[in-house]
C-alpha cells in the first residue's frame, strides 16, 4: 500500500453471501473448499490521520452488525474493479466523507474472500476465475490487491484520425471493417467509400464509427428491411413491411403509434395512452450477466421515457442453459449457466427494485441451446395523458440537451458488438462494451420528466450508439451542431469520439426551445438531475460534431439514415411435419405428470419471482404468484391504479421448441398463448396490442433466414386472426457462438410475444387457483394429437419432430370473446390456459394453486396421452359452480366439455393418474416450501 489506507469490513455474524458462494464453488468443480468468508474493502489513496479513520469507520461500520479493520490482512483472494469501470460505492464513500467535513481523497472499493479447507493456489485461481471475479469488469489477486484509483487529472488527446477508404480494394475494406469492429458488409463499405469519393475527402475515424453504429443490425434492422428471395427466385415481402401491413390491415381504433419511435402506443381508456416496448440485451448478458441484464432493464425503461410516457411496470423473459451443465464441457470463454442465471436475475432485480417499478410478467426457460448464448428480454409499459406523446420534433434553433448520467467510457461500440457473432475472445475485446447501471439516476430522470411535459419538442434515449445514435436520429432532416467538449464527464481524459459513441447509461437527449431552457434547467436542478446544452438543431440538414473548434464529424443526415444499401438475402423455407400423427406411447401417465411438473420450464419460478418487487405502486391486482399459498403461477398479470376501475393485463408467449420444428406454427401458437394469458385473467380480447421480439441465429444462413420468414408469416396470420395489432418489435440476430471446436452454436428460434390488453373492471379479475370442492371443471377448445416440440417429448427424450406442432384453431377468436363475456359476469371461479404439458399439467397447476384435489374423469380425446398431455392451442380449463354449468356451457359455445370436478380429498385423479396432491406440490416446487 504505497501511502494509502484500507478498511476491511466484515459482518459480526455469518455473512449470508457465504453459503451461496460455497454452493456455487462446489457446483463449478472446486470441491476442496469448505467455507468462504466474505468481507468488503474500501481503499483510500492517501494515508488518513487517526481522527479521520475513526470518523469514517463510524459511518461505514455499524457496530451492531459489523467490525472494521485498518490492518492489511494476510492471504485470501481479493477482487477490485478494472480501471474505467464505474465504482458507485466509492463515489458514495466520497459523498459521506464530504458530508462529515473530511477532505477529498481518491477512493476505490473491492471485495475480499477467504476460502477455508485444503485449498491450494490452483484452487484459489480456479475460484477467482470461475466464481469470484468476472474478468470483463474485475481484477483479482491471490492475497491483498493493489487498488486502482480514478485519475482525476487525465488529459485527452483531441486529435482526429483520417482513414482514407476511397481507394481501398475489397480485401482492404473488409480488413478495415474487421480491425475496427465495424461489422459492415462489402456493399455497405462500398457505399461509404463512394460517399467520401464524392465528398472529395477521407472520413474521420468518428465518421466511420458513427456510420457503423447507425448502420448496424442493432440500430437499422437490415435483415428485417432486406430484399429476400427464395432459391427458386420467389420474392418475399421485406419482413418489417409484412408486420406493418398486418397492423395497418387490422386498423385497430385504439392504436396511436406503431413501429415508429421508441415504443408502441395505444389508448384503451378515455384520455390516457399506454406505451409498451420490449428489448433484448443478449450479448452483454452473456459476458457480464449482472451488468448486461441490469442495463437491459434500464434501457427499455428509457425507451418508454423516450416515447414521452411515465414507466409503470417492467417485464422479463430469461433463457439459460441447464444449470446442472458439466463445467468441464463448456465451450471456451463461456460462463457457466449457473453464474449467468444468478447474475442476470440479480441484475434485473437490482435495477427494477431500485428504480421503483414492479417487475411483473415474465418467463424463465432452460435449454442447452442457450448455454453459450443466454437470452435476456426486458419490457416496460408506461402511461401518459392522451396527446402528451405527440411532439412536433426538433425545430431549427432548439437546443440539444443531454440530461441524466455523465458520460464515461462505458459501453463503447455496443451496437456493433451486439450485431457480431461471439467467440472465445469476445470477453476480452468487448470489455469496454459492458455498461454499468445506475438505477437511482434513472429514477430521478423519471421523476423530473413528469414535470417537464410541454418544455421540449422531441425526446429520445441514449441507447446503443450513445449520443451518435440519439442526436443522429433526432437531427434527421433538420441537422444539428454539437460540441463534445461541453458534455459532462465521469472523469477527464475522454477523446471526442469516445464521448460521441459512449453508451454510458441513464442519459436522455431532448430538443428544447431556447425560451423553455431556463424552466427545464430549474426543474432538473430541484431534483438533482444534471442537464447540459450540447449545441443546437440547425435546419441545414447536416450533422456536425465538434470538440471545441475542431470539427470531428460532418455528415449529411440523409446519407447517414438512408445511404445504406438495402441488403439482398436468400431464404430457404422450412418444411415442417404437418397433419395427422400417431400418438406416442404413454405407459405411466402419473410418472409423466410428475416429470412435467418438475421440468425446469414448468416448475415453480417462485425463487426467481420473489427476488423482484412486484408490489410497489400498489397496482398489482393479479400478480405473478397467486393462490391459497401464494405459489401458483397466474396466466397473466393485471395492473390497476388503486383509484381506478379499469386496468391493463400483460401476457407472454414463447416456445423455442415449437420453433425448432415449425417456426410458422410456433409463431402462431405463441401469439395465441400471449392472448390466451390475458383473456384468462379477464382482459378484453377486442383490445389487445402485441410486441414481437425475435432472437435468432445468423440470418445470412438461408435456412436460418427461412425460419425467420416463416415465423413472421405466422405472426402476421395470428395477428390478423385475433385483430390484435403489432405495435412495436425488435430483432436480435446473430445469437451464435463460434466455439473453439469450430462449431457454431446458435440459439433455438426464440420469438417472445408480449400481449398488453385492456381490463375493463379490475375488481372482476380471474385467477387459476381452484376455489371450492364440488365445483365442476369445463374444458374449452379442441384437442388433437399434436406433440411436435412438446414438453411430453422433452421429458420422454423423444425427437422434437415426433409429430406436428399445435396448429392454429380458426375458432379461437370467437371462443375468446365468448369466454371474456362469461368471465365478466364474475360467475367463473377460476380460469387457466392450457400450454406446456396440456390438460394434465393445467389441472394439476390449478389444484396446486388452490390446494384442492381434482378428479378428471372425461378426456377430450380417445387416446390417453393426447387427452392428458397434448398441447393443442386455444384451450382453457374453467371452474364453475354446479348450478352455473348449464349457463356456462351455453355461454361459451360448442367445444366446451365437462371433464371433471374439484374435490376435497387432496388427490389428483385422472385416467392413469392417482396421486396425492402433496406429491404434485413437491414436484412443482422442488420441495422448496
Amino acid at each position, binding site marked *: 500500500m504505497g501511502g494509502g489506507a484500507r478498511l476491511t469490513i466484515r*459482518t459480526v*455474524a455469518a*455473512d*449470508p*453471501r457465504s*453459503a*451461496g458462494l460455497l454452493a456455487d464453488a462446489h457446483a463449478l468443480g472446486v470441491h476442496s473448499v469448505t467455507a468462504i468468508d466474505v468481507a468488503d474493502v474500501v481503499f483510500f489513496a492517501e494515508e488518513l490521520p487517526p481522527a479521520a479513520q475513526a470518523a469514517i469507520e463510524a*459511518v*461505514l461500520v*455499524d457496530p*451492531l*452488525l459489523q467490525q472494521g479493520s485498518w490492518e492489511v490482512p494476510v492471504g485470501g483472494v481479493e477482487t477490485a474493479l478494472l480501471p474505467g469501470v464505474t465504482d*458507485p*460505492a466509492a*463515489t*458514495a*464513500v466520497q*459523498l*459521506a466523507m464530504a*458530508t*462529515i467535513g473530511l477532505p477529498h481523497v481518491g477512493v476505490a472499493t473491492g471485495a475480499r474472500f477467504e476460502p477455508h479447507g485444503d485449498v491450494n493456489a490452483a484452487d484459489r485461481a480456479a475460484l477467482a476465475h470461475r466464481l469470484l471475479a468476472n474478468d470483463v469488469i474485475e481484477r483479482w489477486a491471490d492475497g491483498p490487491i493493489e487498488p486502482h484509483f480514478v485519475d482525476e487529472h487525465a488529459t485527452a488527446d483531441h486529435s482526429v484520425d483520417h482513414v482514407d477508404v476511397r481507394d481501398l480494394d475489397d480485401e482492404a475494406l473488409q480488413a478495415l471493417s474487421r480491425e475496427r469492429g465495424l461489422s459492415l458488409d462489402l456493399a455497405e463499405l462500398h457505399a461509404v467509400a463512394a460517399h467520401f469519393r464524392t465528398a472529395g475527402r477521407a472520413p474521420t475515424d468518428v465518421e466511420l464509427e458513427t456510420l457503423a453504429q447507425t448502420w448496424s443490425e442493432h440500430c437499422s434492422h437490415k435483415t428485417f428491411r432486406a430484399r429476400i428471395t427464395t432459391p427458386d427466385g420467389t420474392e418475399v415481402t421485406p419482413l418489417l413491411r409484412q408486420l406493418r401491413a398486418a397492423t395497418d390491415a387490422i386498423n385497430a381504433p385504439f392504436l396511436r403509434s406503431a413501429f415508429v419511435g421508441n415504443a408502441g402506443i395505444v389508448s384503451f381508456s378515455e384520455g390516457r395512452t399506454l406505451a409498451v416496448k420490449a428489448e433484448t440485451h443478449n450479448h452483454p448478458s452473456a459476458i457480464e450477466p449482472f451488468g448486461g441484464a441490469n442495463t437491459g432493464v434500464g434501457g427499455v425503461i428509457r425507451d418508454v421515457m423516450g416515447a414521452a410516457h411515465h414507466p409503470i411496470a417492467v417485464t422479463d423473459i430469461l433463457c439459460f442453459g441447464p444449470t446442472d451443465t458439466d463445467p468441464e464441457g463448456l465451450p471456451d470463454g463461456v460462463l457457466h449457466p449457473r453464474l449467468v442465471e444468478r447474475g442476470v436475475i*440479480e441484475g434485473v*432485480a437490482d435495477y427494477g*427494485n*431500485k*428504480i*421503483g417499478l414492479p417487475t411483473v410478467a415474465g418467463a424463465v426457460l432452460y435449454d442447452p441451446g442457450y448455454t453459450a448464448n443466454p437470452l435476456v428480454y426486458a419490457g416496460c409499459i408506461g402511461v401518459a395523458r392522451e396527446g402528451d406523446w405527440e411532439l412536433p420534433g426538433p425545430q431549427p434553433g432548439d437546443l440539444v440537451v443531454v440530461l441524466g448520467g455523465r458520460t464515461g467510457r462505458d459501453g463503447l461500440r455496443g451496437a456493433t458488438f451486439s450485431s457480431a457473432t461471439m467467440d472465445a475472445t469476445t470477453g476480452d475485446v468487448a470489455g469496454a462494451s459492458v455498461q454499468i447501471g*445506475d*438505477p*437511482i439516476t434513472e*429514477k*430521478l430522470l423519471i421523476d423530473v420528466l413528469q414535470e417537464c411535459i410541454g418544455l421540449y419538442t422531441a425526446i429520445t434515449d441514449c441507447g446503443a450508439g450513445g449520443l451518435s445514435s440519439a442526436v443522429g436520429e433526432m437531427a434527421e432532416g433538420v441537422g444539428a451542431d454539437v460540441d463534445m467538449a461541453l458534455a459532462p464527464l465521469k472523469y477527464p481524459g475522454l477523446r471526442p469520439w469516445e464521448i460521441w459513441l459512449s453508451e454510458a447509461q441513464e442519459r436522455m437527449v431532448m430538443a428544447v426551445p431556447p425560451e423553455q431552457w431556463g424552466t427545464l434547467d430549474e426543474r432538473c436542478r*430541484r*431534483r*438533482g438531475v444534471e442537464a447540459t446544452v450540447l449545441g443546437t438543431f440547425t435546419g441545414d440538414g447536416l450533422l456536425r460534431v465538434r470538440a471545441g473548434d475542431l470539427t470531428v464529424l460532418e455528415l449529411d443526415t440523409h446519407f447517414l439514415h438512408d445511404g445504406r444499401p438495402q441488403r439482398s438475402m436468400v431464404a430457404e423455407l422450412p418444411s415442417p411435419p404437418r397433419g395427422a400423427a400417431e400418438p406416442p406411447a404413454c405407459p405411466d401417465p402419473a410418472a409423466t405428470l410428475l416429470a412435467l411438473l418438475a421440468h425446469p420450464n414448468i416448475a415453480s419460478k417462485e425463487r426467481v*419471482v*420473489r*427476488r423482484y*418487487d412486484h*408490489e*410497489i*405502486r*400498489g397496482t*398489482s*391486482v*393479479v400478480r405473478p*404468484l*397467486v*393462490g*391459497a399459498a*401464494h405459489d401458483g403461477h397466474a396466466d397473466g398479470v393485471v395492473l*390497476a391504479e*388503486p*383509484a381506478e376501475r379499469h386496468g391493463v393485463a400483460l401476457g407472454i408467449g414463447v416456445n423455442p421448441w415449437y420453433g425448432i420444428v415449425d417456426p410458422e406454427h410456433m409463431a402462431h401458437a405463441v401469439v395465441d398463448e400471449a392472448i390466451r394469458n390475458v383473456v384468462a385473467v379477464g382482459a378484453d380480447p377486442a383490445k389487445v396490442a402485441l410486441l414481437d421480439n425475435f432472437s435468432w441465429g445468423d440470418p445470412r444462413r438461408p435456412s436460418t433466414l427461412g425460419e425467420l420468414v416463416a415465423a413472421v408469416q405466422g405472426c402476421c396470420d395470428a395477428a390478423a386472426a385475433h385483430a390484435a395489432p403489432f405495435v412495436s418489435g425488435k430483432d436480435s440476430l446473430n445469437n451464435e457462438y463460434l466455439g473453439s471446436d469450430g462449431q457454431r452454436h446458435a440459439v433455438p428460434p426464440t420469438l417472445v410475444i408480449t400481449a398488453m390488453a385492456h381490463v375493463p373492471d*379490475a*375488481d372482476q*379479475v380471474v*385467477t387459476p*387457483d381452484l*376455489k371450492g370442492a364440488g365445483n365442476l371443471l369445463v374444458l374449452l377448445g379442441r384437442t388433437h394429437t399434436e406433440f411436435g416440440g412438446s414438453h411430453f417429448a422433452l421429458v420422454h427424450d423423444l425427437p422434437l419432430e415426433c409429430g406436428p406442432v399445435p396448429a392454429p384453431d380458426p375458432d379461437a377468436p370467437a371462443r375468446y370473446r365468448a369466454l371474456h363475456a362469461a368471465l365478466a359476469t364474475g360467475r367463473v371461479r377460476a380460469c387457466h390456459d392450457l400450454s406446456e404439458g396440456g390438460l394434465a399439467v393445467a389441472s394439476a397447476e390449478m389444484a396446486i394453486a388452490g390446494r384442492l384435489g381434482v378428479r378428471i374423469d372425461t378426456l377430450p380425446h380417445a387416446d390417453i396421452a393426447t387427452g392428458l398431455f397434448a398441447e393443442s392451442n386455444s384451450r382453457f380449463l374453467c371452474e364453475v359452480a354446479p348450478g352455473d354449468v348449464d349457463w356456462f356451457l351455453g355461454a361459451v359455445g360448442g367445444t366446451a366439455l365437462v371433464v371433471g370436478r374439484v374435490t376435497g380429498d387432496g388427490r389428483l385423479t385422472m385416467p392413469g393418474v392417482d396421486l396425492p396432491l402433496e406429491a404434485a406440490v413437491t414436484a412443482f416446487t422442488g420441495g422448496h416450501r
Partner: protein
Amino acid sequence: MVLAAPGTNRDHDVAFALDLAGADSRITLLAELLATPALLDDVQLLVVAGGFSYADALGAGRMWSLALTHGVGDALQRFVAAGHPVLGICNGFQVLTGTHLLPGSLAHNESGHFQCEWVRLEAPTSRCVWTEGLDPVECPIAHGEGRYVHPDAAGLAGAGQVALRYAPGHNPNGSAADIAGVCDPSGVVLGLMPHPENHVIARQHPRHTRGRAGGLGLALFERGVRYAKEH
C-alpha cells in the same frame, strides 16, 4: 410530510395511503428540507418513505441518516419531542435506526438476498401510538436488508417498544424475536420493514379473488393521522 431522498420510491404509495386515511400529504425532497429545516414546523406528521436512498451504497439508509443527522438533526429531535408522530417504512426504518431515533439495526436477510412476499403482522401491547389496538395486518415485504438485530430483544419488549411482530411462521428474514417494527421510548416514532401502504384497498391482497379480504394496512395510517390531529 412524506420525505423522499434520491432513490426513495414508495413516497407516492405512502402519500396515497395517508390521504386515504384522512391526511393532506405532501412529498418533500430531502434537499428541500436540508435547505429549509423550518419546513418541519408546518407539519404534524412525518413519514420517511421506503426505497433505495443513494442506492444504499454504504449500507441500507446510511447516507440518508448521515445527511439527516448532520443537516436537520436538531429540528428532527424537536419534532419528536413535541409529540408529532413519525413513521419510517423499510428504508425509512433503516434511516431512523441510523439516526438513533429508533433502537437496533437492520442486517442482510438470512437468505442473503432481496425478498418480496406477503406477511402477517401482529401488534403486541406497546407504547406505540401507530399500532394501539391494531388488528392483524397483512401486507408485503420488499427488502434485502430487513433482519432486525438488537442485543436485548426481550428488554425492548419489556420496555413496550416492540410495536409489530411477524405472526408465527411469517418471519421472512430471521429478525430477532420475530420483530417487524419498533417504536421509540415515547411511542410516537415507529419503524417497520413491511409495507402497509401497499395494502390500503381490498384488491391489493393476493387472495382477493378467493374472498379473503381483511387485514388492511390502512388501519395503521388511520391511527397515526388521528393521533397527529388530536395532539
